[in-house]
C-alpha cells in the first residue's frame, strides 16, 4: 500500500510479532481491544490477530512533526507577505492560509485515497475506505505500520496531509500581487488533485516510481513541482503592472525573517518526520537539515558580501531556503560533508538563477522557481555525489547500483517537471478562460487587501 520506504526484512517482522506482547502495554490502553490485553497477559504467546502495538515514542515525534509542518504554513505566509507591497500583505497571507482550509478538507475527502490508496495503473491511488477517512478505524485497529514501526493511522494521514497543504501554497509566490482570490482557490484545489496527488502517488505511494527515488521529504514531489508550476504561471500570467520599472519594495522584512525562522524550525518536522521513525535516520535527517540550512544562509551572505560589500537579511533567508530545499530529498542519504555541499552549491546556483530572471525579465515575483525549482533540481541530482552509503541501504529506494539510482533520480526530476509543467499550463489556461485569473488593473492598483478582501493589513498606519 505504501512504498515511501521499503519494508523491513521478514526477520524484523518476525521479531516484531514475537515482541508485540512485551510492548503492548505501551499501547493506547484506554482503547485497546480485548485480544491485545489477553495477549499481553499471556505474556509471550504470538498474537497474530491483534493490531501491532503502537510505539508511543515514534507517535510522539510524528505528532510533533505534524505541528511543525503546519507551523510552516503561517511561516510561509509571513515569509511571502513581508516581501510584497503594503496593499497586498493580507491577500498574500491568505494565499497560504486558505490552503490550510481548502486542501485540509480536500485531503480527508479524497486526497489521501488518491495518494496512498491502492494503485490504479501505477499512476493514481484509490481506496474507498479512505474516502472521507471513513474506514480508518476499522483497518488494523486504526494503526499503520511501516518498516516495523506502528503509529496510529490518523497520525500518518495527517502528516502526509500537511505536505499536500504547503505545496500549492508555495506556488503563490510566483504570481504574487496580481491574481483573483476565487481563481486562486480553484487553481490550488485542481492543482492538488491533478498534479500533486499523482506525483505523490507515483513516487511515494504505490506508483510506478515507488521504491526508486531518493526523495525523503519532497524535493521532487514538492519543490520541483511547485517551482515549475510557479515558472509556468509567472510566464503565462505575465508581470505585475509596472514591473520592473517601478520598484516594489518589501513592506516588512522583519515579518519575512520571522517567517524564515518558523520555516527553518518547521523544516525539522518536514524532513525528520518524513522518516516515520524516532530513530537513527530521524536524527540524521535533522542534522543534515540543520547543516544545509546554515551552509546555505552563510553562502548567500558571503556571496553578497563579496559582490556588493553588503549582506542582506533577505539574502540570508534566501540562502537558507535554498539549502533547506536542496537537502529535502537527501536528508537521510548524505554525509555531513554532503549536507554542507548541498547547502553551498545550490545556493550559489540559485543566486545566479535569480540574477538571470532579472535579466530575462519575467516576473516570478518571490522567486518560487529561482529558489524552490532550481534548488530542488540541484538537490535531487546533486545528492548522488554525497551519498553516505550505497543506495540500497537508504530507506526509500531499492536500486542496486549508483548508476541505476542516478537514472531513477533523473526520471523523478523529469517526471516532476513534465507533469507539473504541462498540467499547470492547462489549468491556468482553463481557469483563465472560464473565470479570469488576473486582477483587473484597478484592483491591482488598489491592492488585493482592499479590492478582494475588504480589509487593510496595517490599520496602525492610519490615525483612527
Amino acid at each position: 500500500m505504501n512504498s515511501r520506504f521499503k519494508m523491513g526484512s521478514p526477520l524484523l517482522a518476525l521479531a516484531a510479532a514475537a515482541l508485540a506482547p512485551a510492548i503492548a502495554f505501551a499501547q493506547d490502553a484506554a482503547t485497546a481491544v480485548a485480544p491485545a490485553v489477553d495477549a499481553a497477559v499471556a505474556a509471550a504467546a504470538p498474537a497474530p490477530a491483534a493490531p501491532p502495538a503502537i510505539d508511543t515514542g515514534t507517535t510522539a515525534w510524528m505528532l510533533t512533526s505534524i505541528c511543525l509542518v503546519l507551523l510552516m504554513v503561517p511561516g510561509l505566509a509571513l515569509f511571502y507577505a513581508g516581501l510584497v507591497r503594503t496593499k497586498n500583505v493580507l491577500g498574500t497571507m491568505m494565499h497560504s492560509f486558505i490552503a490550510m482550509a481548502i486542501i485540509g478538507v480536500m485531503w480527508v475527502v479524497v486526497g489521501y485515497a488518491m495518494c496512498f490508496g491502492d494503485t490504479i495503473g501505477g499512476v493514481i491511488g484509490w481506496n474507498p475506505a479512505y474516502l472521507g477517512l471513513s474506514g480508518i478505524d476499522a483497518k488494523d485497529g486504526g494503526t499503520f505500520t511501516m518498516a516495523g514501526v506502528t503509529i496510529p493511522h490518523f497520525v500518518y494521514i495527517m502528516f502526509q496531509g500537511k505536505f499536500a497543504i504547503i505545496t500549492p501554497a508555495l506556488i503563490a509566490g510566483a504570481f504574487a500581487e496580481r491574481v483573483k482570490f476565487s481563481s486562486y482557490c480553484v487553481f490550488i484545489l485542481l492543482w492538488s488533485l491533478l498534479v500533486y496527488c499523482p506525483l505523490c502517488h507515483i513516487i511515494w505511494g504505490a506508483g510506478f516510481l515507488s521504491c526508486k527515488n531518493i526523495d525523503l521529504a519532497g524535493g521532487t514531489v514538492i519543490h520541483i513541482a511547485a517551482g515549475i508550476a510557479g515558472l509556468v504561471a509567472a510566464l503565462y500570467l505575465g508581470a505585475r503592472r509596472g514591473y520592473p520599472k517601478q520598484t516594489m519594495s518589501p513592506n516588512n522584512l522583519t515579518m519575512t525573517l520571522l517567517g524564515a525562522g518558523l520555516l527553518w524550525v518547521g523544516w525539522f518536522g518536514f524532513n525528520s518526520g518524513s522518516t516515520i521513525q524516532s530513530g537513527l535516520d530521524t536524527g540524521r535527517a535533522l542534522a543534515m537539515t540543520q547543516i544545509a540550512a546554515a551552509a546555505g544562509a552563510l553562502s548567500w551572505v558571503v556571496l553578497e558580501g563579496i559582490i556588493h560589500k553588503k549582506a542582506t537579511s533577505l539574502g540570508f533567508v534566501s540562502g537558507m531556503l535554498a539549502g533547506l530545499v536542496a537537502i529535502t530529498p537527501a536528508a537521510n542519504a548524505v554525509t555531513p560533508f554532503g549536507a554542507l555541499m548541498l547547502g553551498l552549491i545550490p545556493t550559489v546556483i540559485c543566486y545566479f538563477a535569480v540574477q538571470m530572471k532579472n535579466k530575462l525579465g519575467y516576473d516570478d515575483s518571490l522567486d518560487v522557481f529561482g529558489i524552490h525549482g532550481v534548488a530542488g533540481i540541484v538537490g535531487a541530482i546533486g545528492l548522488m555525489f554525497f551519498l553516505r552509503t550505497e543506495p540500497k541501504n537508504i530507506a526509500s529506494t531499492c536500486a542496486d547500483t549508483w548508476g541505476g539510482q542516478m537514472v531513477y533520480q533523473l526520471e523523478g526530476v523529469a517526471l516532476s517537471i513534465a507533469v507539473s509543467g504541462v498540467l499547470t499550463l492547462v489549468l491556468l489556461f482553463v481557469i483563465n478562460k472560464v473565470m479570469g485569473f488576473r486582477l483587473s488593473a484597478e484592483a491591482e492598483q488598489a491592492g488585493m487587501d482592499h479590492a478582494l478582501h475588504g480589509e487593510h493589513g496595517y490599520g496602525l498606519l492610519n490615525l483612527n
Partner: protein
Amino acid sequence: MKLIIAIIQPDKLDAVRQALIDAEITRITVSRCTGHGRQEDIDLYRGQEVSPNLIPKARIEIAVNDGFEKVTVDTIIKAARHGDGKLGDGKIFVQDLVRCIRIRTGEEGGEAI
C-alpha cells in the same frame, strides 16, 4: 513660486507620479494621511460592513515656479481621476511660496525648486 498640495487616492499615486514625470516635474514629496470628504469606503469586519471615518490617502507636495503651476495642477487632475471622476478623487490646494532653498548648495528661488 507656489506650493501645491494634492490629496489623492493612494491607488493613483503611481499614475500621478508617472504623469508628472512625463510633464518633466520630477521633484516631489509624498506622505501618508487619512481624510474625510464625501467618499465612503467599505471594509468588512466579521461579516459586517463598516465604513471607517477616515480613509487612507496620499498627500503630495510639490514646489513649482509660477509658470509650472497650471501644468502641474492639470496633470494631477487628469491622472488622479478614476474614470470621469469618482467621489474621493481628492483635492488640490495651491499656496504661495515665499522662499525655496536647496540645502546642498544654498541656492535660492527659482533654480532651487
